[in-house]
Every structure is written in structure tokens, then in C-alpha cells.
């Protein structure tokens, strides 16, 4: 059913009650939390509009115009842009007129910029814990060191593939690599200048987390990847991220990949399967 707004909703909008209710209901369907659909456009509704816009706009303004890109996304974008594992998270695929983050004017994709606000990415995604990875997939091997070692869990190992993902090769669990291919395809469509510059510093790598004798790196299961742009690694923990990463993170998010920029210590080059995506990957293992 096609719904129409009679006026705008949100910051400075007309906020006609039936319109507000419609927006609140759609926001809830998209995984946002505007509160009860009471027709009152308060701070929670505006916050939810901004959070939703943050999945596809660089500067959310908190306003849903009657036929603007936010409304088009809310009203007609369900399921778009989903990868082979289906849609995950609040983000949906590209729609005509949708505003995408803008590439830098000087074309330098590795310029560090401040880490975006935490409510503007990974919306609707949950980071997965070590314990949950162990519980979902089992131990990828029996012993670990600080070096990358091959997987020796036979059940997992038979699902490991090495395949070209656009401009680089990735080794990981097959459904995760397939998802990456979808992500790369979307990046290539949205940012054809950036896509060929993307490389990797590794995906599958069975080892302990840095400086730990017990915790296992999420790379050990082949569901996490570190990216480079022009062969340059984003610096870990400096609170800044390469501008190119800010462009591709929403695309990763749409496919269920959690961006490490949100970690307590920022890890901008790192993307890993969120809880939902990890569960779907698990469901697709041979």
C-alpha cells in the first residue's frame, strides 16, 4: 500500500498528527525507537528520525519531508540492497533521490577525519562477543598463539573459501565472503573511484587477541576483516578514521557488518559480522 504524507514531520515540520503517527509506525518497523505511535513529535521521535537518516545521510536533519528521500526510504525501501543473507539492521537499499555521504572534494580517501558520532552508524546492529562466537561456531582451532594459524576445526574448515572480492582476495567462511562480495558490489556502484582502492590486511587469522593469552581474535572464525585504502591502514585507537571508511561503513552496516570504529578503542579498519549476521552465517554453513 502506498502511503502519503500531507505535511512534513520532525524538526520544524508541520507535524500533523496522522502524519506523525504514520512516521512513528514506519520508524518502528525499521528498527528505530520513536516511542508509542501517539502522533506527538517529541524528542524520541526526532531522535529516531535522525538515527534512521544516519543510515544513509551524512548530516541527518531530523525532518521527514512529504516526498523527500527520508520518506521514500521509510515508505518504500523495505528490503532494498540486501545481500544474499537478507536485510539486516535499520539501513535499507538505495532509493531514487536518497542522499548518500559525499566523497571528499580533494579525492583523497585516506584523509583522517574524526570518528563519526556513535548514533550515526551500526544502527540496529549488535557487536558479537567472544563467548557468543564460541557458542555459535565452536573453537576454530585447539591452540592459539600471537601468530596467524590455520583453522583445524574440520566442521568449520570445510566452509572456508578464498575468493576475489572486487579488488582484493579474502579468505573466510563462505557465507561471510559471499556477503562481502555483495558489499563490494554496492560500494563499486556508489563509489566507483573508491572501490578499486580498497584492499585488506587480512580476514581469517586464528590467533589470540593482541596482548591476550586467553581471548581469541574475531578474525579466528573468518567473519571479520581489516580493510586498507590505497594500502594504508587506518591507525588504531586515535579516534580518527579515514574518510573513505566513513563512506563505506553505511554500506557494510546495511549488510549486517559491524564497524569497529564504535569499539571502546576505535578500530576504524575493522568490520565484523554482527550478532544477526553471524547467526545467519551459521545457518548457511555446510
Amino acid at each position, binding site marked *: 500500500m502506498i502511503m502519503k504524507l500531507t505535511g512534513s514531520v520532525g524538526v520544524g515540520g508541520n507535524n500533523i498528527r496522522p502524519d506523525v503517527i504514520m512516521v512513528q509506525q514506519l520508524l518502528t518497523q525499521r528498527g528505530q525507537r520513536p516511542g508509542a505511535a501517539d502522533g506527538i513529535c517529541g524528542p524520541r521521535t526526532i531522535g529516531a528520525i535522525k538515527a534512521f537518516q544516519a543510515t544513509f545521510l551524512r548530516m541527518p536533519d531530523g525532518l521527514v519531508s512529504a516526498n523527500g528521500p527520508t520518506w521514500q526510504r521509510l515508505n518504500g525501501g523495505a528490503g532494498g540492497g540486501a545481500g544474499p543473507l537478507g536485510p539486516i539492521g535499520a539501513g535499507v537499499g538505495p532509493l531514487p533521490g536518497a542522499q548518500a555521504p559525499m566523497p571528499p572534494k580533494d579525492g*583523497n580517501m*585516506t*584523509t*583522517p577525519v574524526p570518528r563519526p558520532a556513535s548514533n550515526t552508524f551500526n544502527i540496529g546492529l549488535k557487536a558479537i562477543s567472544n563467548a557468543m562466537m564460541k557458542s555459535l561456531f565452536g573453537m576454530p582451532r585447539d591452540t592459539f598463539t*600471537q*601468530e*596467524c594459524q590455520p583453522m583445524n576445526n574440520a566442521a568449520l574448515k570445510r566452509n572456508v573459501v578464498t575468493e576475489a572480492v572486487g579488488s*582484493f*582476495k579474502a579468505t573466510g567462511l563462505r557465507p561471510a565472503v559471499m556477503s562481502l562480495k555483495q558489499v563490494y558490489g554496492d560500494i563499486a556502484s556508489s563509489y566507483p573511484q573508491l572501490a578499486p582502492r580498497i*584492499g*585488506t*590486511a*587480512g*580476514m581469517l*587469522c586464528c590467533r589470540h*587477541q*593482541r*596482548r591476550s593469552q586467553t581471548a581469541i*581474535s*574475531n*578474525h579466528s572464525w573468518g567473519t571479520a576483516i*581489516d580493510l586498507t585504502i590505497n*594500502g*594504508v*591502514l*587506518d*591507525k*588504531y*585507537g*586515535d579516534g580518527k578514521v*579515514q574518510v573513505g571508511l566513513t563512506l563505506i561503513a553505511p554500506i557494510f552496516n546495511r549488510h549486517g557488518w559491524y564497524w569497529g570504529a564504535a569499539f571502546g578503542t576505535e*578500530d576504524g579498519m*575493522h568490520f565484523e559480522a554482527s550478532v544477526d549476521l553471524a547467526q545467519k552465517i551459521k545457518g548457511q554453513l555446510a
Partner: protein
Amino acid sequence: MTVAIAAAMRITRAARAMTCAVLLLAASPLALVATANADDGVKTRPADCRLAVPSSWRGWQIEWIGPCTSGAANGAGVAIATAGGRPPERFYGIVTSGEMTEGVFDIPDGYRPARFEKGEPVALDDRNQIIAAFRVAASAARDVSSRFKAARNTQAARDYAEAAERLENQMD
């Protein structure tokens, strides 16, 4: 990182005895002529400590803080490249007989781990090699920190210790 060339310039006589810090004018990746800079305040640095640098640093001023053997940079250390008003770039790693062999470039946009072939850095895509390059770089930064500590330049020692920490933590 806040370590500036000036920090290296403040190195004391005691550290100079241990450290071969040379100022080079990069001309070609394979044949560089070391030239001491009379105005930099470190006049006792040997002028015959060769260090070949990649072509991307051609024309840049290069400082090497690390050991020299038989007239060439040799061992773990840091090469600092400056040009005009640009932010400095650094190479933390191993140099063998004046040739960079393995380490990490610390540039304003991030880190570029590399091994070298024919004097030019080769990008790494194997995760173990990348981890190894960062380990080598961190160790080199710690060596440099120790040199400054021995020279009682506590600020530079701390800066390089922090650089080592960052390099050590980069790869999970």
C-alpha cells in the same frame, strides 16, 4: 605523534656516541650521499652514514636515528622524512647495510607496512607478514626510545615508547 625533528636535534652528546643520526638529501633510492647539515645543531653526526630511501621520499630531508656500521645505516631505528611544510613521515624498521628491509611507514593518513625489493617498498597483503612488520616497527621504536632515555631526553623517550605501543597494538 608529537616527536618532531627538533626532538632528535636535542639529543645529547652521550646519545650521539650511540646513535648514528644523519641528515641526508634523498636523491635516488639506491645511491644517496649523506650530507651533514651545519645548521641543525648536531654537528658531530657522521656524514658518511648512507641510507637509501624509496622514491616517494626523493628530495625530502632524511634523518636516521639508529645504528650505523661501516658508513651505512644498519639495524633497527627510525628514518624521519621532512619536506617543506608537510607533516613528517617516518619509517620504523630494520635497515641492512643502508637498505631498508622491513618495517612500517607512519604517514599522516595511517600506516603502510612494507618489505623492500630493489630499494622500493612492496605492499604486504599476507596478514602474518603485516603483523610481523608491525612487530619489527614496534621493536625499532622501542630501541629509539631507549637511546633517548639513555641520553636523558625523557620527552622524546616517552614519545617513541608511545609510538611503539601504538604500533604493537595496531593488529588484532
